[in-house]
């Protein structure tokens, strides 16, 4: 019984080793620190993929382990991006304005600088005043707090209302989607104070690091993303391996029974929903400096649906499944939609992958759900010699989100 954490969870060590190897490999093939085999934009793609793996991990906790099919976690991800983006954009613009005013005969007053920043940032949406939401944008520590606080409080308030009234299953999914949609529509408006559909841009330029090339920055962000993913994975594995994980899975399969054991199901749901929202926000805060731009389209409901698709294809209820799904599908998607996949000439019709990728993905999702609900993670089960219990198709509990027969292992 008394064994170390890693002895009981060997997959964690394997995962961390692979992640370290990957990071080292990319570093050695990068422009800044290696052979220049990988382009800087591809290093950024890989760094962003690691962030997507982290948000997929959060999704797996809330959906795969606890059965809440949230269609709002990419909204929390984007909100995290917006919060860090505000500082990046403000501080960077401030640098430029200070530089421009340096040539003036009189030294610039703080008011002049602030006005200059506001005009620069809000000129596109026809404003010249800094909205109240930008109050703390000049301070990195304050915006970092907001990265955690804004999505966290939104998730807390939303979750409190939704879980308290015991909305579950499909209805809860629809509710989370409505929240996402409302937030996106709000951000599209110019008077939301976040530049409407222009969003925030130039985020790849890190204030104070003007002298560092994008080649080096891309690798630094890759390291930061890998570290965040490693830490996230470690904590997630620790949480699900203990009694808390037991309670989460129990809630997924039969929440009524959990209540009669004396656990406050609503409290657990709220806790996990909020914490995973914060993890998603942190992933977003690392993602958008690598993407360089964020706009309200990023939190359209479809983004959250993709997130669910990644986790499903990777295999929900397994941490590595979520990571594999997110990495595999998002990289494949980049390849297909980047126009690099060769078109297929059928004689009468040419399959352009840019158009057909979505359909292929949709189809794979349906097929995986129907025939291999354990997803790509099932391959690992197969290799490890694990089998499904034979339950004549019965799920493992009465809840909507309960583990299905084929997702379970003996």
């Amino acid at each position, binding site marked *: 019984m008394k064994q170390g954490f890693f002895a009981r969870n060997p997959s964690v060590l394997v995962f961390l080793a692979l992640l370290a190897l990957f990071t080292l490999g990319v570093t050695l093939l990068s422009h800044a620190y290696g052979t220049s085999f990988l382009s800087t934009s591809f290093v950024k793609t890989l760094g962003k993929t690691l962030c997507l793996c982290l948000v997929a991990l959060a999704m797996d906790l809330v959906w795969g382990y606890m059965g809440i099919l949230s269609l709002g976690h990419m909204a929390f991800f984007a909100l995290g991006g917006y919060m860090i983006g505000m500082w990046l954009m403000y501080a960077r613009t401030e640098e430029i304005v200070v530089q421009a005013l340096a040539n003036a005969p009189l030294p610039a007053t703080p008011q002049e600088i602030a006005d200059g920043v506001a005009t620069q940032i809000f000129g596109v949406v026809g404003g010249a005043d800094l909205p109240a939401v930008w109050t703390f944008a000049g301070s990195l520590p304050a915006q970092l707090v907001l990265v955690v606080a804004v999505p966290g409080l939104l998730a807390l308030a939303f979750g409190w209302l939704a879980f308290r009234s015991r909305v579950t299953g499909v209805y809860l999914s629809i509710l989370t989607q409505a929240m996402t949609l409302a937030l996106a529509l709000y951000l599209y408006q110019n008077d939301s104070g976040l530049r409407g559909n222009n969003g925030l841009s130039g985020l790849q330029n890190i204030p104070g690091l003007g002298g560092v090339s994008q080649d080096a920055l891309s690798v630094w962000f890759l390291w930061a993303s890998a570290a965040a993913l490693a830490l996230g994975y470690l904590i997630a594995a620790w949480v699900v391996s203990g009694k808390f994980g037991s309670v989460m899975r129990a809630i997924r399969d039969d929440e009524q029974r959990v209540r*009669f054991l004396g656990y406050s*199901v609503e*409290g657990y749901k709220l806790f996990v929903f909020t914490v995973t929202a914060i993890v998603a926000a942190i992933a977003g805060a690392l993602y958008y400096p690598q993407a360089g731009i964020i706009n309200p389209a990023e939190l359209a409901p479809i983004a959250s649906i993709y997130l669910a698709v990644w986790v499903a294809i990777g295999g929900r209820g397994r941490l590595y499944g979520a990571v594999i799904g997110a990495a595999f599908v998002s990289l494949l998607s980049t390849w297909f939609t980047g126009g690099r996949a060769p078109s297929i000439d059928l004689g009468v019709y040419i399959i352009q992958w840019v158009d057909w990728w979505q359909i292929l993905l949709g189809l794979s999702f349906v097929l995986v759900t129907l025939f291999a609900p354990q997803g790509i993670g099932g391959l690992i089960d197969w290799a490890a010699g694990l089998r499904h219990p034979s339950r004549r198709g019965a799920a493992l509990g009465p809840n909507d989100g309960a583990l299905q027969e084929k997702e379970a292992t*003996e």
Partner: protein
Amino acid sequence: MSALLEVSGVSVTFDGFRAINNLSFNIGTQELRAIIGPNGAGKTTFMDIVTGKTRPDEGSVTFGERSVSLLSLSEAQIAQAGVGRKFQRPTVFEDQTVFDNLMMALKKPRSPFAVLLFRPAKVDAERVAELAAEVGLRDHLDRKSGELSHGQKQWLEIGMLLAQEPRLLLVDEPAAGMTLAEREHTTALLVEMARTRAVVVVEHDMEFVRRLNCKVTVLHEGSVLAEGSLDHVTKNPAVIEVYLGRG
């Protein structure tokens, strides 16, 4: 003997249908009680009310020495106060091992933070092993409970109830799907448990009730029709008419 649970004047209506009608019921701190009654008499609904799953339209339900009203508590709070429940079907967490099922049920702080930081100590693991042995599952601790037979799942659920250490135990048709030997074992266990707590058993099987050798409450159309020893109630003409008479 003071009452542990006091239900008085409780009524519940589902879509205009009165499932429980002005029901009153008491049980002492260390007492075994059987509830019998025809299908649809309201036995399960009665348990739903006590455990907080169903809210009555009127009446009161109080529990413990300080007569705490259960009507304002959530299911989880009622369970924490010391009411345990066994369902008609065995309900265990099928994707988890026998060990995990029992560990979750073990009487420990239930708040998310406490559970997050909880790591089983040696005594906890020993207590789980002891409980597993008590319900005949000592050799199955590491098996997923979904693989157990129907009877073993019933036992696991009983083990989980023991782990919860409730002061009042509500048991819905425990003997369903059990072999004769298992029934005897169950009877003995229920009688044993009632030495230190209150146990309410709902059962259809008359032989089983007879072996429990305790006071019997007959429910019919949502209220108490008769109460007393099994022999006493089975002689009651009203009971014979509505229940026993139909075979």
